[in-house]
């Protein structure tokens, strides 16, 4: 199995979720993160103090999929998240040794 981790722009969540469902993926986990990269945030100004908001709000999507689905799903995510502007984010793939569905104890592919 593979864990696909995607850092995306927050307003693309709905599209990514739809792409996953169409791709047959049943679940995912989302967390709020802040990203630093080529895309620069706005400058904030509070009375005299200026802060470069160099950490931009992003969402991190984590999906575990079977090895065979990985390429297809990764592409679907990337496509759904793409706007073409800096800050669209990254997608990383890691190998997963074992997966468990906590409710039932089912293992690996059947756990997804």
């Amino acid at each position, binding site marked *: 199995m593979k864990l696909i981790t995607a850092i995306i722009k927050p*307003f693309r969540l*709905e599209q990514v979720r739809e792409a996953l469902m169409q791709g047959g993926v049943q679940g995912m986990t989302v967390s709020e993160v802040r990203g630093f990269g080529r895309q620069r*945030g*706005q*400058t*904030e*100004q*509070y009375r005299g103090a200026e802060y470069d*908001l160099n950490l931009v709000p992003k969402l991190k999507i984590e999906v575990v999929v079977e090895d065979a689905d990985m390429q297809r799903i990764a592409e679907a995510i990337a496509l759904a998240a793409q706007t073409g502007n800096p800050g669209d984010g990254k997608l990383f793939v890691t190998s997963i040794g074992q997966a468990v569905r906590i409710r039932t104890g089912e293992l690996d592919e059947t756990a997804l």
Partner: protein
Amino acid sequence: MKPLFDGLRRAGVAGAVLLPAAAFAQDAAQQAAPVADKGDTAWMMVSTLLVLMMILPGLQLFYGGLVRTKNMLSVLTQIGAATCLAMLIWVVCGYSLAFGPDAPAPFTPFIAGLDRMFLAGITPASTAATFTKGVVIPEYVFICFQMTFAAITLSIVLGGIVERVKFSALMVFALVWMPIVYLPIAHMVWASSGLFFTMGALDFAGGTVVHINAGVAALVAAIVAGKRLGYMKDSMAPHSLTLTLVGTGLLWVGWFGFNAGSALEANGSAALAMINTFVATAAAGLAWLAAERLFGHKPSALGLASGIVSGLVAVTPAAGHAGPLGAILLGAVTALACYVAVAIIRPKLKYDDSLDAFGIHGVGGIVGAIGTAIVYAPALGGQGAADYDMAAQLGVQIAAVCATIAWSTVGTLIALFIARAVTGLRVTTEAEREGLDLAEHGERAYNL
């Protein structure tokens, strides 16, 4: 709140002339030139600041809690700055155009003259008449009280177009809208030479001037400005219903200044307006919850808040005219009407009146204004005389409502087109997506 304006002007002048005499004229009643009762003055000063509290922070929180986090500061700043601007407009020309000496015919029914620009000639000793012959309040207090009404009306309008319009556009809009929409309608309703006033329309505390007017303007603005990006697709859940409920509480508290203050005296009429503002609101709050149950939903916090505000809107024109039972009825019925408008009709139509300024202030104001003619009947405990002619009054109320809607629609369109021509009206797609807080104001509401 219909000062007898001939009386007002006379009293004002008299007060000015008799100033040196004022010191020993403590006991007003028997004097030729009336002196303000300190109880009335105290109450009207309190009422004035209560209406300010309805705006800052009341309406700011009520509205602000309903938008997304990224637009919170824009709501706070828009309402705050609009309030400041409305106040300055008021002292520059607003008070004069709404309540000043008559303009020459044929303008008399629509607007007053410019003689009181910059509050010319008014001193601490000037007085304004109330509804009771011989009873006056300091004119500065009357000016301040009315000033807060102007500010809150403008602020309510913003509820239709939050989360997408440029700050600069709103400032231009305000500069045009106040003179061509608010001031004439205020004059028509409250000045003794005003069109609706002479028609005999009942509007105790400004249902027409404030709520119908603002609600309609918000609807027109929402349609012209267009929908928010992602409207009806993305989640636009309120970022903090807690703040909305706080705003609701402050609105209710402040509304006693609005309604009971509109008696212009600390007397039984104000007391009647007060009890009505309690019970109509309580009934409306519970009625909205009941409506939610009826339509298969859970009774919600936002429902309670919406019901409370719709009840407050409903009772505004009726506050000193209805009896408590009539007020309860009016509150409950209006809440149901607003519920239907907001939860059933609006989602079916295509416009994005983002914070339901029309659905609550507009619809509630209309039901309240028409209902006032009903609950005014002595049979329902109202203050109408024994020979009260309800049908005739209903006709007058409906005419005033229609005229207000028409005037507000046309004027708002003009103000919007000017604002669009000068500033472009809407922010860019990117700015809207990022949020107006960062894009327009360079700040974020929370750094938790």
